[in-house]
Every structure is written in structure tokens, then in C-alpha cells.
């Protein structure tokens, strides 16, 4: 599903990623961990195509991101869900509109958009909150909206950057349960976190980064 070959990324003289070689299988649940500045976000941005490597190759589902055009990258992103620490919701749109946006962008029919949006909101436990605006919800609820939006397209890959960074431990557990249920349906999950509690007894693959290099690979 995801292959990285000798990937390096530099910002000026600062090396954010250094000679990264990784392979993640389809349906895998992978944690990327490490301290702040280790290169976790940069690695996710590379996989998502919002940043290009200085050298090396990245393949997503067999597509080389270095050789892909702008339009094809847009089309590829429709198959990839994303969840960020700051939720990235549009505050002027309702919860329903925020979630539906992912399908509108893909040119889906209104009837299907309505049906799938309600299904996605039900899956994250937010039925009845369709007409609310993001700022009327709690942090945990906002992150659930972001997850609903990420899964509505039934993506092959879901990327999450510190998805529980702003949430309390109870809500964090709820969000992780949601991620596991998404993974069980066959979606590959890559989650970047520096929260060690999250990695305890997960039974999932953990890749530890430090100063832009992979320093450890283990199962949690």
C-alpha cells in the first residue's frame, strides 16, 4: 500500500527526514511516534502528497507521487482520508455540510451524499447534530466530525496527525475505538502521535522516529 525508498526531506540545511525506507501493507494499522521535531508530520505530509521529498520515491497503491500530476494527485486524495489535531473543519458550514463536502468534491449525486453523510455521522455517534456548527461542539465531537468526513468515501488509507492531541483521556479512548473500527473494515491507518499511553498494548506496528530517521520498529 505505502512504500518509501530512501526518502529525504530538507528545509534549507535542516534535514527533516533522512533516508527513510518503509513499507506498509494494505489494511495495516501503523503508529508513527517520536518526540516533537522527529519528522512525524513531515512523513505524513509526504504520504499525503502535500510535500514533496527532496530525494527518494514514495509509492501509494502503486502510484509514484514524484511523477504524479496535479489532477491525478487530487483524484488520489479522494481515496485518502485525513484527520488532524486541529480538526480542520469549516466553521461557517454545518456538521452535515462539513462531512458532505468530501462527496461533493468528488461530484457525487445529492441523494447518495445525503444517505452516506447520515450513515457516517451515525457511525461516529453524532446523529442529531447535523445542523450544529463546529464551534457549538466539544473538541471530541469535532474530532468525530473530522473522522466521519475522513471515512465517508470509504478510503483505502486514513492518515491522522496527532488526532487526540487536544482531547482528554476518555475521549481519546473513544476516538481510538473509532479508528480501530475503521481499520477493521479494511482501511489502512497511519497515525502519528507522541502520546505514549496510546501505544500501550495496542498490538499494532509502531515506527519510532528521531531527528528524521527511523530508530525503531516494533509491535506495541
Amino acid at each position, binding site marked *: 500500500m505505502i512504500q518509501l525508498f530512501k526518502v529525504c526531506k530538507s528545509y534549507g540545511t535542516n534535514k527533516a527526514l533522512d533516508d527513510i525506507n518503509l513499507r506498509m501493507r494494505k489494511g495495516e494499522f501503523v503508529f508513527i511516534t517520536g518526540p516533537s521535531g522527529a519528522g512525524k508530520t513531515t512523513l505524513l505530509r509526504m504520504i*499525503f502528497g*502535500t510535500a514533496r521529498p527532496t530525494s527518494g520515491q514514495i509509492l501509494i497503491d502503486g502510484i509514484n507521487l514524484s511523477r504524479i500530476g*496535479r*489532477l491525478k494527485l*487530487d*483524484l*488520489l*486524495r*479522494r481515496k*485518502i482520508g*485525513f484527520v488532524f489535531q486541529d480538526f*480542520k*473543519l*469549516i466553521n*461557517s458550514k454545518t456538521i452535515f455540510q462539513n462531512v458532505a*463536502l*468530501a462527496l*461533493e*468534491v*468528488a*461530484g457525487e*449525486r*445529492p441523494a447518495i451524499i445525503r444517505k452516506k453523510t447520515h450513515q457516517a455521522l451515525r457511525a461516529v455517534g453524532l446523529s442529531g447534530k447535523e445542523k450544529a456548527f463546529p464551534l457549538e461542539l466539544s473538541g471530541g465531537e469535532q474530532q468525530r466530525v473530522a473522522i466521519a*468526513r475522513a471515512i465517508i468515501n470509504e478510503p483505502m488509507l486514513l492518515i491522522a496527525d496527532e488526532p487526540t492531541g487536544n482531547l482528554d483521556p476518555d475521549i481519546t479512548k473513544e476516538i481510538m475505538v473509532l479508528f480501530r473500527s475503521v481499520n477493521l473494515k479494511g482501511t489502512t491507518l497511519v497515525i502519528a502521535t507522541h502520546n505514549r499511553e496510546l501505544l500501550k498494548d495496542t498490538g499494532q506496528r509502531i515506527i519510532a522516529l528521531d531527528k528524521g530517521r527511523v530508530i525503531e520498529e516494533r509491535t506495541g
Partner: protein
Amino acid sequence: MIIRLWIYFLKTALANILNNRLIHLISMGTITISMLLFGAFMLLSMNMNNWIRQWGESLSMSVYLNDGIDEKARKEVESAIKNFTGAEIKGFITKEQAIANLKEGLGEQAGLLEGLEDIVLPESYEITFKDRAGSSIDPKVVKSTLEKLKCVDEVQYSQQWVDRFEGVMDMFRVVGLAIGGLLCMAVLFIISNTIKLTIYSRRDEIEIYKLMGATDWFVKVPFLIEGAAQGVMSGIAALLILVLSYSVISLKTIDILGLPVINIAFLSSEGCFFIILLSLVLGLLGGFISIGRFFKS
């Protein structure tokens, strides 16, 4: 699919306009003023052209006589004038009348003539030619024929003024083009900056759209529609104000310097269409410039 997409674009553009209505209203007001100036200039230019054309078609002449000529010589001039087909003597202007006309023409400035007791203006005949259009009267031949008479000092005709005025009109057209060009640039600048403001106020939203896999055009089209809508609405508003001003101003006819009375005409339907089309093009172009710059950066 395409119809669905365009419905989505139109709804998004409308929502954007409503969400940023103050910015759009200010921008539309400014564009309306610019387009109003542009339309007024078109109207003025068109009427001046018409005026000059009509003026040229209704030939009138002033035949100035030498000083101290007798009744016999005047009769000679009159019969020479009447020999021309369609020529009609509108009046004989005596020296006293000529001075009175001059004073009247000067209005409040007539005081300038006080103290000039010795001022002498020549007597003259005012003549016109009926149905000049279609006739074969050559004003130059009339002028030279009459000036050959001993008692005639000079013959002046309106065509000379028209010819002179044509030069002024050419200059007017060049100035008009320059002002029109500047106004278009101003409108472009206003629209592109308004759209830029709305783009920057929604840059986080655009980033989210792009993260979800929206194509560049999916993001761009609503902004272009915003620009076009701004342009068209401002163009229509400018035209409405122009129509209102035109109907409110009761002076639909003007009589300048005793020349033939003319009607002020409003822009043709093509002229109105041109203003709206120009507004639309400028709006679209303004949108293109700002969204293009945003995506480049």
C-alpha cells in the same frame, strides 16, 4: 453531473457573496461608479458625433458685407443668394443688431464692451439651405461665388466650424479611449482585490477543499462566478442609473450658439449590451487574476 456541478458552483458563489456582502457591496458600488462614468462618456461621445453629423447636414451661412454699401448693392447680394437652389435668407443683421447679439452672447461679461464706443461690426445676411442632404450644393462654391461680389467682405459657413470641430472630436475620441482604458483598469483592480480579500478570508477553507481532493477548477469556478456576478450587477446598476438620469434631466434638447436644435439620444441596445458585456468580462478577468495569483503562491 455537469448540471449538478454548476448548481453547486452557483450556490457556493451566492453563499460567498452573501457571507461577504459588505465587501461585495462596497466593491460593486465602486465598479458601478466606474461603469457609470464609462457609460456617460459613451453617451456623450455618441451624442456629440450625432450632433456634428446633423450640424454638417443643415448648412447655414453668414455673408458679411463691406462697410458703407448702399441699398442697390444689398439687393445685388440678395439676388445672388437667391440664385442658389434652396437658399433662403433667414434675416439681415444690422450693425446695431450685431452688437446687441454680441452683448447677448457675452451675457454677464457684456460689461467688457463698455467704453468701446467705436466698436463696429459688419452687417450680414444669415442664410440657410433647405434639404441640403441629397442636394448638390457645394458650400465652397457658394462661398467663393459670393465673395467675388465687391460688396461682400467674407462668407462663413457652419461646415467650417464642423471641420474645425472634427479635429476637436478626434482629440476627444483619443482622450475618451484613454479614459475608458483607465476606467477598465480601475474596475479590474477593484474586482481582483475584492476577490483577493474573499479568497484570503477563506484560505483555510480552500486548503481543506484541496486536502479532500478538490481540483483547482472546483475551487476556482465559484470565485470566477463571484467576479462575473459583481461585474454584471454593477454594469446593470450603472445602466439603470444612466437611464434614470437621462429621464430625469428634462433638457432633452439643447440649442448651442444658435445652431440647429438637437435631441439627446440614449445609448442603443447594442451600447447597453456592450456595457454589460464589458462589466462581465472585467469581472471574470478580475477573478482570474486574483485566483490565479493565489494558486501560484
